[in-house]
């Protein structure tokens, strides 16, 4: 199932040209498995994780698995960096730290990112995830990525 570097680069380049990153998300098996989507609105990007049965952790509440919420936030940060750096390659994760603020219920989840610092070699991104309103996040996170 592995793709050549050229095939991937073509899709990345086309995504940058059209501003439609759905083909890029489709390319990443993990992003496809959790079912995440991306929307670019001008110079902003919104990430969506539609509710999906296999993303449930605790079945009693039911609640999304915290690891899925974190994975969604990490992938959102990576795509956000690629989109706004016009990057041709996938940034590599260095570290990731997440604070869980409220239960992630079995609902659609949204995320937005903020790049606080983009150096030549390392980028720092903050991620906010929410379900009902962005002022009531279910989790906040920050990540460092290697850019070269």
């Amino acid at each position, binding site marked *: 199932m*592995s793709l050549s570097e050229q095939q991937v680069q073509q899709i990345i380049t086309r995504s940058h040209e059209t501003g439609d990153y759905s083909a890029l998300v489709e390319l990443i*098996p993990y992003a496809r498995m959790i079912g995440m989507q991306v929307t670019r609105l001008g110079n902003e990007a919104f990430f969506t994780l539609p509710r999906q049965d296999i993303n449930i*952790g*605790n079945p009693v509440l039911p609640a999304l698995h915290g690891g899925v919420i*974190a994975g969604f936030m990490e992938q959102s940060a990576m795509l956000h960096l690629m989109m706004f750096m016009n990057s041709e390659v996938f940034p590599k*994760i260095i570290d990731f*730290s*997440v604070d869980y603020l409220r239960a992630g219920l079995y609902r659609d989840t949204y995320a937005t990112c903020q790049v606080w610092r983009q150096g030549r070699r390392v980028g720092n991104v903050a991620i906010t995830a929410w379900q009902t309103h962005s002022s009531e996040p279910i989790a906040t996170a920050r990540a460092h990525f290697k850019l070269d």
Partner: protein
Amino acid sequence: MSEIELRARNFLSVLRHCQHLQMTVERADEDGLVLRLPYSDQIVGNPVTGVIHGGAITTLMDTCCGISTVCYLPEFEICPTLDLRIDYMHPAEPGKPIFGFAECYRVTPTVIFTRGIAYQDDREQPIAHVVGTFMRMGKAVDPADLGKRIDQGDA
């Protein structure tokens, strides 16, 4: 099978996403917990190299740190994650399972501090270091009686 291992297995068996990823308990005792995450195409993060996505490793380690609480608590308690930090030492090698080890290094009446590593062939060469803090909510009281299912093994 020890009582701790049984409770760890029961706990893991109710977590739907972990079942989807086919995670299993390797070992559970007074010294901590080891979980196994098999390699699969669906958790790949880089389609060129086949390297597993960080999110799958985060899920393994969140689960591992969370379930490691059963190694230290006399009976099941719901312990939601307060925070989790992962430092990636190097990428996982494609095609091989990943193991997660976690232990609780401080248990207080309100919070539990856990730490762990993710590794493949050699525990001395971890893929990632992890620390996680969990909240103690007291004995589980819920309609489906999750605590009973986990402690008494009919999960």
